[in-house]
């Protein structure tokens, strides 16, 4: 009977960590965000500039970002202007493609759906996955409220805040503790996505709708105008991309097979020394 003890020294128990609702909505969002990002960049390319205020300045300047191509003595170049500072972004923004077949678009064809200029299709794709994202968000909030995922794993508690510096140090040293619950950094990241980034990107998206602005004019006041809402929508997109990059790096560092298994089957291998509970597997 010494076998289980030997076993538990090498690894902790297999715990059921992700409910079917968490897993289903997770992969739904993964697909949605992929299509929303690439169709969103297609939509952005129809007018590759961002402004602050109610309207877009054509006879005055209220732009904070502007991507375009300019003619220089050395030929056309791609240019990006951010907060009044201009950068040469030839090859990526404003002008991309090969020397034989240059593309004069904001974001390059490799990161837009479709790859060619097609605002109409970009909108079709964007609104379909926008609805799907919101539907999954609704399902997740409802399920997570009922099954306790929200209270147990997402809402940061006092202990999570006080444990934050140590958890940050552990993460910086790539020392990952695979517990029954999310670490403080995980909780705060997921909390920010669900309670700040997702609501912001949905609400700023709706603020761009003239129909929704009629029904809820407070949206315009909340975000400081339709064009500011469009700028925030873009900014939140970059934060979500940043979250995605860090998320993937963390999955790779923390053990990609174990992390993927928990998001596919729900079962997660904990670190050695994790006290077993009823319902665990060895």
């Amino acid at each position, binding site marked *: 009977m010494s076998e289980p003890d030997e076993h538990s020294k090498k690894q902790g128990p297999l715990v059921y960590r992700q409910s079917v609702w968490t897993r289903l909505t997770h992969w739904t969002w993964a697909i949605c965000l*992929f299509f929303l990002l*690439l169709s969103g960049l297609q*939509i*952005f390319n*129809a*007018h590759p*500039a961002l*402004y602050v205020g*109610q*309207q*877009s*300045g*054509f*006879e*005055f300047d209220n732009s904070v970002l502007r991507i375009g191509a300019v003619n220089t003595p050395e030929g056309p170049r791609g240019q990006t202007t951010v907060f009044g500072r201009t950068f040469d972004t030839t090859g990526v923004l404003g002008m991309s493609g090969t020397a034989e077949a240059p593309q004069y678009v904001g974001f390059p*064809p*490799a*990161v*837009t*759906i*479709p*790859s*060619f200029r*097609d*605002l*109409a*299709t970009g*909108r*079709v*794709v964007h*609104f*379909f996955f*926008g*609805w799907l994202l919101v539907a999954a968000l609704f399902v997740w909030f409802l399920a997570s409220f009922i099954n306790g995922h929200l209270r147990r794993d997402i809402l940061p508690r006092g202990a999570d805040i006080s444990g934050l510096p140590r958890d940050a140090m552990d993460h910086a040293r790539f020392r990952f503790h695979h517990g029954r619950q999310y670490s403080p950094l995980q909780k705060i990241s997921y909390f920010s996505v669900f309670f700040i980034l997702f609501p912001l990107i949905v609400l700023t998206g*709706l603020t*761009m*709708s*003239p*129909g*929704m*602005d*009629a*029904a809820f*004019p407070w949206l*315009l006041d909340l975000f400081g105008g*339709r*064009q500011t809402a*469009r700028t925030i929508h873009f900014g939140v997109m970059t934060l979500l991309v940043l979250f995605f990059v860090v998320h993937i790096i963390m999955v790779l560092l923390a053990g*990609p*097979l174990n992390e*993927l*298994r928990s998001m*596919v*089957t729900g079962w997660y291998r904990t670190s050695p020394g994790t006290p077993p509970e009823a319902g665990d597997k060895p």
Partner: protein
Amino acid sequence: MSNIILNRRKLLIGSAALGSSLALTGCNQFDFLGERGNPVRQALEQANVLTYRAQRALIGNQVLAREYAASEIRQGMKPNGSTEPTTPEYMFLKAQNFAQYKLTIKGMVEREVSFSLDELRNMPARSQITRHDCVEGWSCIAKWTGTALGPVLDMAGVKPSARFCVYHCYDNIQRTLSGDILYYTSSDLVDAYHPQTILAYGLNDQVLPVSNGAPVRLRVERALGYKQPKYLHTIELVDDLTPFGRGKGGYWEDNGYDWYGGI
């Protein structure tokens, strides 16, 4: 057991590899979504029907779009789309400063009626400073003056079976080998009878210029710019949009844009 785990691992590695290659090779594998008749695209387009129904259910029929203070007019109205129609009919009218212009209401109405520009100007006027949102993403605030469309439709007497207004315009938005394509679009009767839906003949306290749709353009303030036709000459009441153009209810709609245009 170990076999199962191995298979699962293979599956996971395989799907991860597939996912990352999908992200890295660019996105021309989704170019088929640009084909207008593609069944996958048509399925995705159903989301636009949902948007239309949701907004109609959520937003009261009489709820107004925001009107801005005069101080928000900080620039001229940006002209877009057609800015200088070249059809003979339009050139003729323009040469006479639109003295012979007539707006016609026809189709499923009790009586077909026509109004000259002076007759429209003598009807009760409404001015509104509103934000024009283009489908491309930009916005521009301007003051529009005109007469409400609803009472004009009532003068013609809209039959109960009518469901849509089709707006026919003078401008040749696209020139093809088989002739000019003239701009048209359509709306439901909710948008047509909305109090801010006006037949605009004035812009920023001036006569509406040619580049912005002279002599008359429609304002539909809760929709995007392509639902607000310029160079308007005929409004046709119908119960079916398929006989017009390529059957999607408008020039841009025929080119893949959503019919409702409220987002």
